């Protein structure tokens, strides 16, 4: 089954382009992009099990910790697209990654769970506890998600870093788009998907 957010990412990726997926997991998205967009793909992943899965899929996988810096690994502009899917909120230095990824590639695609989603707001604002739900399943003391943000937080960081937002899509928990989402994305978007580039 193809997740709708992959469908959106796939639409943004030019066929036959060079794609780097940072935190590529088991490589499912890269496999999807190779199949649909005939891209040449490289994935970075730290987890042993996921690295092995990616290699078993026949993908090019580099085992590395994203937090230790990616600019050492890749030459400037060696890719057309860098994807950071559901990973940035788990980074120690998300702002460094955003800056680095746009030195490696022309365009970046970033997806993350939206902390401003209404259910998260209800759990924190009304019920007074850290959100636990499908998008954020872990308790506060044992979660990889250490740098959660809302759509507007992310957009102001981009502004600060001189990053231009080319496209934005928000989807609900089933990774679908809807009218409500388009009207009040920071309330009803459970996941955000951005296409970004460095300002000229």
């Amino acid at each position, binding site marked *: 089954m193809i997740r709708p957010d992959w469908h959106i990412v796939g639409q943004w990726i030019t066929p036959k382009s060079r794609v780097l997926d940072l935190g590529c997991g088991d490589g499912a998205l890269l496999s999807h992009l190779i199949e649909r967009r005939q891209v040449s793909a*490289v994935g970075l992943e730290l987890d*042993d099990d996921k*690295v*092995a899965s*990616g*290699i*078993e*899929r*026949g*993908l*090019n*996988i*580099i*085992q*590395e910790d994203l937090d230790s810096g990616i600019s*050492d*690994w*890749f*030459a400037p502009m*060696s890719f057309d697209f860098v994807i950071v899917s559901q990973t940035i909120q788990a980074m120690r230095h998300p702002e460094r990654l955003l800056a680095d990824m746009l030195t490696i590639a022309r365009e970046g695609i970033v997806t993350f769970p939206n902390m401003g989603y209404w259910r998260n707001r209800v759990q924190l604002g009304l019920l007074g506890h850290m959100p636990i739900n499908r998008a954020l399943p872990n308790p506060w003391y044992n979660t990889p998600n250490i740098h959660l943000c809302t759509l507007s937080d992310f957009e102001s960081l981009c502004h600060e870093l001189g990053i231009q937002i080319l496209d934005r899509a928000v989807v609900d928990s089933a990774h679908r788009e809807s009218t409500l989402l388009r009207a009040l994305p920071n309330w009803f978007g459970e996941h955000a998907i951005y296409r970004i580039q460095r300002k000229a």
Partner: protein
Amino acid sequence: MSDASEKLTQSGLSRSVGIVEPKTARFSEPLALDCGRSLPSYELVYETYGQLNAERSNAVLICHALSGDHHAAGFHAETDRKPGWWDSAIGPGKPIDTDRFFVVCLNNLGGCKGSTGPLSIDPVSGKPYGPDFPIVTVKDWVHSQYRLMQYLGLSGWAAVIGGSLGGMQVLQWSITYPDALAHAIVIAAAPRLSAQNIAFNEVARQAIITDPEFYGGRYAEHNTLPRRGLMLARMLGHITYLSDDAMRAKFGRELRSGKVQYGFDVEFQVESYLRYQGTSFVDRFDANTYLLMTKALDYFDPAQASNDDLVAALAEVKAHFLVVSFTSDWRFSPERSREIVRALLASGKQVSYAEIESNHGHDAFLMTIPYYHRVLAGYMANIDLASTPRGASSPVCSTEGAV
């Protein structure tokens, strides 16, 4: 299948290639060497495991490390205590699956296990080469391995695989014969040795050369062996192949007799282990070969010809790479493997890199570590035999009935 290998199968070694027999290939065309000399003729001893397919597209070359040889898997006799040096990874259903691949492993030139080396007779003098055997380099080995490939009637390898010094040969293959291999698997290697590594080799060489029984390498003529020197060289090497953690786990500060003796005899278990490793090595390895192998390591530097630019050196490479390193390997640390990976990426090559958590040091590359073997097996399983290079070279010898 012979009776003996059937017995091995029955005795629970069903994932073994069974009983194997070394073969010898003779080459009469001179081989020009990096050092300026040439070998007028030479022999390479090799073993094969698995069956070559009809398309001749499933051959895999295994390159051995410093003290390795052609006996990578299986047993020579039913009574053998130990299988070949990389039996953990080569065999039916193993990561380098002999049900799918035709695996070739040879003893390199300058070796002491049957291929032409210091123990062989120099046709000019009629005496063993001894110290007069020319210095051979990784590139010389690759040239000789290419000739073995032709001898076997192969026009290319599905993969060339090696660890440590073997990994260096793989890297050299991809540079020197870019059209002859589809995949390169480089394990626990480095693009060249560090000063520290060369220093260890130099101490090992000095231990051998300064042994009074060395006689300038002509110990055979004096009916002796530089036992102490070779033993010291091996002991030193062994320390660098293990990690601090591995030695602590294996020996700690355990005493053989339970209490200290205030003397210089063997007291700690680690001393006993090292002495055993050293003395048993003397019985199975030649000192002149050891010197040659360490020199081949020291000289290896494929980027040198490209102004020390590894990216440029890799420009013509066509093989897809898998690079593997081990976290506690300080002789060939993960950082050295990352240098190779970064250069491959920078020159736009296809590469995967796995860093295996292990406390076994450099020796980890020979061990059955589940994640390591999963990566190796996963990579091998994805090799498309249709992409194996094909040329028009015809067989010089028959590979029918190869074990």
